[in-house]
């Protein structure tokens, strides 16, 4: 009996891993080695693929992996200009009919040609099923339907003139194969978990959640030199912790970290043997939005005082370690050279001027120099960089006699508070502001989905709505005027635009950096060209 009882405890302890071992054996086995000859690039990412359907998935890893399989109509160059990709030409037959002319030499991985019907199907399916995470859905507001005029021409029938829709839909929308996605009744609930059909440069062949995603070369691939992507396969491995990710890069377990590096790690990795750090221009910005529905933020003088209180250069120097640049308080990222206005100037860090502005506005400081202004600022604790500069902003404001109470919170609470407008000051960042007209409409028109300042300025609204139907040259002029209005009235207080850095093993070369934290060097145009130096 004594022996039996101890044995029972031992059996419990030893049996558990045995059970685990058996179950682990039941887990999906890795796919045996590929037949394709050539190199494998192993890429580290911090998150899993949430959804393999590019019309639904909106996490960064979803984007990176599905973007390698489902083409976009347009791409972007380093100056932020939209360039041909699947669409070789686009424009408007008349104010209410847009068109894309697409390439005729692209095939899906199952051999079927990519046609205008695929593009039209994708647009109509998004309109019909409204997939939740789909960015394109909101851009199709003025599109009534799409049709294929021929095998290579897609028509967009607009409900009202819109000069931005072709650029935005072309840049953001992944085209999916109609002969695969058309078989499901609702693309919004289609998981697309296997038998993937893509059109390269790589197509997913196996996925092990929490572990790795393997993609293999698709041939022919007309965008790659010689019609063939340089790598045989690309493997994305998941390392949720950034420190582990960096150790994996240093040990050679992975070749590239897809996520941009935290500012503090950039210099460390720059000085690490065998590692190359590469700069990627940003396309978004970090900003402070003052909720103008809340008093006293409806007063221009108060917003200006807050703007003059912040030491922007110190934030960029200390928190971003010099890896961010000023936008000159413009909501247009400097990388967008066609729109950025070099005559704009950043709000000067001047606490004394901030105090003067408040006094002129009728506020009186107490014996300790405080004006009795107390404001709540929300930010997400998941965003470590914003959390750091938010405290600097509060400290700067205190020097100007304004009290800012910091409310760092988890992302979901932050989203809920943002959605409800439950803040005085919102601190955060926009990831990609690739099209000034579209983004200004979302940010500064009344009811705009990301109008966090609750701006409602008829003059600004007119500039933006005029730009939506203007020619590209007219748009630049209207956007410049709108940017000045935003800056001068502190409708948005842009703190910096961050340049990003990615790291890879030095033996790899051929990367093409595309602007934004989303595209970086894992864009299809880049990974189709990557090779080893030897």
């Amino acid at each position, binding site marked *: 009996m004594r022996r039996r009882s101890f044995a029972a405890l031992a059996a419990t302890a030893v049996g558990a891993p045995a059970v685990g071992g058996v179950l682990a054996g039941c887990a999906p086995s890795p796919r045996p080695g590929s037949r394709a000859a050539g190199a494998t690039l192993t890429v580290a990412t911090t998150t899993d693929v949430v959804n393999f359907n590019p019309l639904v998935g909106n996490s960064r890893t979803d984007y990176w992996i599905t973007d390698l399989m489902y083409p976009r109509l347009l791409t972007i160059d380093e100056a932020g200009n939209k360039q041909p990709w699947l669409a070789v030409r686009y424009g408007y037959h008349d104010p209410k009919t847009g068109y894309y002319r697409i390439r005729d030499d692209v095939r899906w991985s199952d051999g079927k040609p990519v046609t205008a019907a695929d593009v039209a199907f994708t647009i109509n399916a998004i309109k019909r099923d409204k997939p939740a995470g789909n960015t394109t859905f909101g851009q199709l507001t003025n599109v009534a339907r799409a049709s294929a005029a021929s095998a290579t021409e897609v028509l967009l029938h607009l409900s009202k003139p819109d000069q931005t829709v072709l650029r935005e839909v072309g840049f953001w929308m992944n085209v999916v194969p109609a002969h695969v996605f058309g078989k499901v009744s609702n693309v919004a609930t289609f998981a697309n978990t296997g038998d993937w059909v893509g059109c390269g440069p790589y197509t997913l062949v196996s996925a092990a959640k929490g572990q790795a995603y393997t993609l293999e070369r698709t041939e022919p691939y007309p965008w790659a030199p010689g019609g063939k992507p340089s790598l045989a396969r690309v493997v994305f491995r998941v390392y949720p912790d950034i420190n*582990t990710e960096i150790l994996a890069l240093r040990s050679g377990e992975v070749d590239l970290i897809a996520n941009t590096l935290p500012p503090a790690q950039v210099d460390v990795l720059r000085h690490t043997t065998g590692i190359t750090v590469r700069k990627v221009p940003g396309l978004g910005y970090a900003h402070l939005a003052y909720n103008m529905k809340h008093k006293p933020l409806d007063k221009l003088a108060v917003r200006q005082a807050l703007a003059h209180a912040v030491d922007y250069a110190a934030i960029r120097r200390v928190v971003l370690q010099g890896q961010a640049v000023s936008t000159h308080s413009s909501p247009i990222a400097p990388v967008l050279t066609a729109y950025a206005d070099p005559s704009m100037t950043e709000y000067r860090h001047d606490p004394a001027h901030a105090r003067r502005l408040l006094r002129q506005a009728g506020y009186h400081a107490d014996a300790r120099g405080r004006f009795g202004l107390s404001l709540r600022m929300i930010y997400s604790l998941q965003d470590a960089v914003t959390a750091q500069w938010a405290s600097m902003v509060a400290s700067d404001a205190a020097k100007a006699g304004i009290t800012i109470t910091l409310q760092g919170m988890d992302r979901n609470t932050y989203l809920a508070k943002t959605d409800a407008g439950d803040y005085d000051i919102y601190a955060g960042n926009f990831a990609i502001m690739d099209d000034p007209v579209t983004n200004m409409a979302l940010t500064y028109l009344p009811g705009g989905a990301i109008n966090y300042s609750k701006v409602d300025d008829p003059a600004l609204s007119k500039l933006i709505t005029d730009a939506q139907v203007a020619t590209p040259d007219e748009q630049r002029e209207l956007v410049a005027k709108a940017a000045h209005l935003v800056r001068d009235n502190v409708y948005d207080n842009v703190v910096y635009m961050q340049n990003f850095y990615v790291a890879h093993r030095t033996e790899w070369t051929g990367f093409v950096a595309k602007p934004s934290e989303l595209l970086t060097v894992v864009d299809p145009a880049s990974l189709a060209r990557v090779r080893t130096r030897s």
Partner: protein
Amino acid sequence: MSTALRFAGRRVARGLLTLWFAVTATFLLLRLLPGNPALAVANPNMTKHDQALLLHQYGLDQPLIVQYGKYLWQLLHGNLGISFTQQVPVSSVLLARLPWTLLLTGSALAVTIAVGVPLGVLAATRRGTVVDRLVQLGGVVGQSLFVPSVGIFLLFFFGLWLRWLPIGGAYSPDAAGAGWYGNVLAHLVLPCLSLMLLQIGSYVLTLRASLIDALGEDYCELARAKGLPNRAVVWKHALRNALLPTTTLVGLQLGFLVGGAVLTETIFAYPGIGRGIYEAVTQLDYPVLQGAFVLLAATVVVASMLTDLLYGVLDPRVRTR
């Protein structure tokens, strides 16, 4: 009905009640979380109307009691629902991850007991010596360790500096055939060691204290007086009673093990259920979270029942209470 059967029946009934409570609490707590799943997955272009449509699609626009009723009904039929974000059955999401968590936590528990019991015995039988003090010090230090620090240190030392073991994952993507099992084992070593280091202090210190108490009991004195060698007194007489608190600890620590596995799995990029829970929390994927918590609650309840039953085997007096 025999005493043992009645004892087992009571434990099973209590376990089921605990499970129902855990299911209900999970259901309610998730809905008390700030934010809503539509916001967590929606893109900035989405209007309020479309967010409402999404909530309708998720069934979250119905009264709470209706949602709860439907959820329980589905659960009774073995249906954990469909993931909001992944659009696949929750059961498949969890089943892909569960084996790795079982492998990791089970191995960690086994190694912890295999190392912790002899160390506890050593410290108790060498009470007051340098060995005892060292074991106690190690135990206290182990209890105060922080998962990320231990994990990163182990990865740096064994993975990067010595290059003996892989940095992350459960196996290399190119591992195949028979070599796959060795590859899995190599990937298991560091996360298992990390969990073991965090756990072992509790076992060693608990066992040491209870064994010292047991060795001072009359029946051990009697055994010694009868001329039994000290080794037999310790291992055959005292240890059995001394193991009772340790057995309780195994049951209690299971919950901690699973909780600890969330961080461990994150640091070591281990594809277990802990990481799945973390991701589901960030996306407010209620069905996956509910499924995961039901599964974990069931695991803890079953482990607790087994502990109770084992307790009954170790100490027959328990069955009559």
